[in-house]
């Protein structure tokens, strides 16, 4: 078996290929089942404007948790929708400023408008890991008890809002009553 070592590359390749093949079945657009219907991870952090925030600051009604960053071009695309939702009071929106810098985030909000009740500052991405964030933008629907109920990866525009979030919210409301 002295020639066994020459088989190592092909064995390694088989392992990688199986992983890649499995990877094709992963649905990166939905949250793995374990965080759905689980409470939001506990946090005690600062917000983008510098004040301390924790789980107790979250709205006690159904709200959106939106992951954003000043570097994130698609975030600009979904921004008008978030602005409309918060301005018209349809639903409160909490931001997670993911892997960004505070000064850039402040500028970005000043430039584009601030739809967020507050934005959790997550410069290191640590909170994002707890939350299972893949990258900005991402939006979670959280119920009044702070339990994550729905997740949408990538841009939330009016269509996504109408077709995915509204039915999910209607379902939650139906449960609640």
């Amino acid at each position, binding site marked *: 078996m002295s020639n066994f070592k*020459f088989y190592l*590359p*092909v064995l390694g390749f088989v392992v990688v290929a199986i*992983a890649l093949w499995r990877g094709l079945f*992963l649905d*990166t657009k939905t949250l793995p089942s374990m965080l759905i219907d689980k409470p939001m991870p506990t946090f005690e952090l600062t917000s983008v404007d510098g004040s301390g925030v924790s789980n107790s600051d979250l709205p006690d009604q159904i709200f959106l948790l939106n992951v954003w960053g000043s570097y994130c071009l698609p975030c600009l695309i979904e921004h008008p929708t978030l602005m409309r939702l918060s301005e018209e009071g349809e639903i409160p929106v909490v931001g997670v400023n993911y892997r960004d810098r505070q000064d850039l985030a402040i500028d970005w909000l000043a430039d584009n408008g601030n739809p967020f009740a507050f934005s959790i500052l997550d410069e290191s991405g640590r909170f994002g*890991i707890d939350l*299972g*964030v*893949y990258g900005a933008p991402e939006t979670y629907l959280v119920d009044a008890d702070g339990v994550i109920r729905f997740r949408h990866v990538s841009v939330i525009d009016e269509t996504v809002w109408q077709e995915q979030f509204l039915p999910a919210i209607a379902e939650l409301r139906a449960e609640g009553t």
Partner: protein
Amino acid sequence: MIPEVGSFSLILALCLSMILATLPIIGAYQNNFLWMSMARPLSAGVFVFLGISIAILAYAFVTDDFSVQFVAEHSNSLLPDRYKLTAVWGGHEGSFLLWTFMLAGWMLAVAIFSKSMPLEFVARVLGVLGFLITGYILFMLATSNPFDRIVPLPPVDGADLNSALQDFGFIIHPPTLYMGYVGFSVVFAFAMAALLSGKMDAAWARWCRPWANVAWAILTLGIALGSWWAYYELGWGGWWAWDPVENPPLITWLFGTALIHSLAATEKRGVFKAWTVLLAILAFAGSLLGTFITRSGLLTSVHAFASDPSRGFFILAILGITVGGALLLFAFRAPLMKSEFGFGLVSREILLLSNNVILVVAAASVFLGTLFPMVYQAITDELISIGPPYFNAIFIPLMALLALLLSIGPFTRWKRTSTSYLVQQLGKVALAALALGVVLPLLVTREISLPATMAVAIGSWIILAMLLDLVNKTANKATRLKGLRALSFSYYGMQMAHMGMAVMLLGVALTSSFSSERSVLLSPGQDVGLGNYVFQFEGTASVNGPNYVGEEATFTVFEEGEEIAILHPQRRIYLATNTPSTEMAIDAGFLRDLFITLGEQKEGDSWSMTIYVKPFVRWIWLGAIFMTFGGILAAVDKRYRRLRRKQTESNRSKDKSNSIGGELQPSS
């Protein structure tokens, strides 16, 4: 009708490449001269028909044929012509056609510049390339035909090219990167031909080397162009982000760099044969992995094309057949490739081996970091995120180690070098480098900084050692000039690429440590200082392009009271998609870049903006340019041409002086 001709031409190319993938290889086994000699004309045919296809796609773009789905999705009647033409590679289908066409171009080049190689070998190389092209065209026709139509109701206008792509960088970065990427397919084909024939000797390494060097040089340039483009277009002042799509080219580059070094040892000393072949396969696997990642939707990233799982399966199948098959063949054949000579513990062989170990470890770490989140999710259903901290923690020490060893390499001899000689030669270089590392930054910044000291010390270590080697090598000639002339292109190529490495390391280290930036809100007439510079905001004016509207600001930059530059950053809205985009203004300099990104207009006439000073950032790309020239210089060494002539003359006899141990197969 014309797009259908494009499709048809693609099918013809497929037919020819299928013949190319079979007949010449069978011919090589059966020693059938006719079948083997079909390889060259078939390669030319594949190239021509793929060329017709891509020309027709370009024509569809230029004539705004929005009935073609790919055109409708990636162009717009307002798009300037040069972007219409380059929108050919603005999406998955077209860029894959370009990829395949470029591979055919490389294949044609092999067919033309392979006169010195035995026909049997050429037939195998071209056959393997034909096999790859067959797979790629099948993939296109099955899952992503760029000529698919929108019937019965084509849109009136197209959706427009992504505004971030409407830039000069987009015209040159993807083609260069692809060119380098597919170049490694040629090296792979050489390795496969060697494995198929079971003959692997110094001659093989010599044939392979110029191709590997050119592919490596172009890939280096392609990656650097991508980094430069991201730097000036994306507007965050970064030049590398460890993005899952940036990593595969880097993995390929690292394997490729290891490969060109181990090829040197294989050619000159007949050692590391199996290892060299394995590296050739791995470099190719890296390039296919890049394709897989960008086109399967496996990882989310700025580079990713619209995802479609069926594409992922198809590319995975190609990956499995080619790389899996190659590695299996390797397992059967590698035990036959014995090194012919031993070498001592301090020798050039050992230095090259260390280079290879470091580069392969680096490549493996980047590979793991890129795929681990996905693997982890597949096993545990949990998501994790691996970012720059992981990559930097592993990559920076490895590259520093590589740089330290890099200077020793050229001083060592094959087989054995005395340690005392190395110490005597390099001891003074090390001292001088350390002294420079301490003194230079102190003179410039008037403060001691560890990163600057280390960067300058390592950079001078490489450059001083190079100069000393040059002095040594020319010492015995009548005049220095004669000595310099007597040195080979390969030697200059190596030194130039090594110097490129030093320059790049300096750029990376100094930019990372000393960049500064500032976000401010300014009204016309106000100014802001950063470092030694003062940026005065003069005002804005509206600018309208063919497919966008925008505002352009004017800044005057002063250094110690003296006006040194006028900068015009812009903010644009692209009309077709209504997306905002920022065009930063850069004052590029050898020692520092100044740049401004314009934010939005605020209350009154004030604007938000971010101002950056980035010292030595150009050195990163300057280093890459040195490396590219170095690689090309080494590839055009007249040694390869001389041998080519010699072998053509005597291609029926064994050329013993050039073959170490192995057999050279007489051609035809």
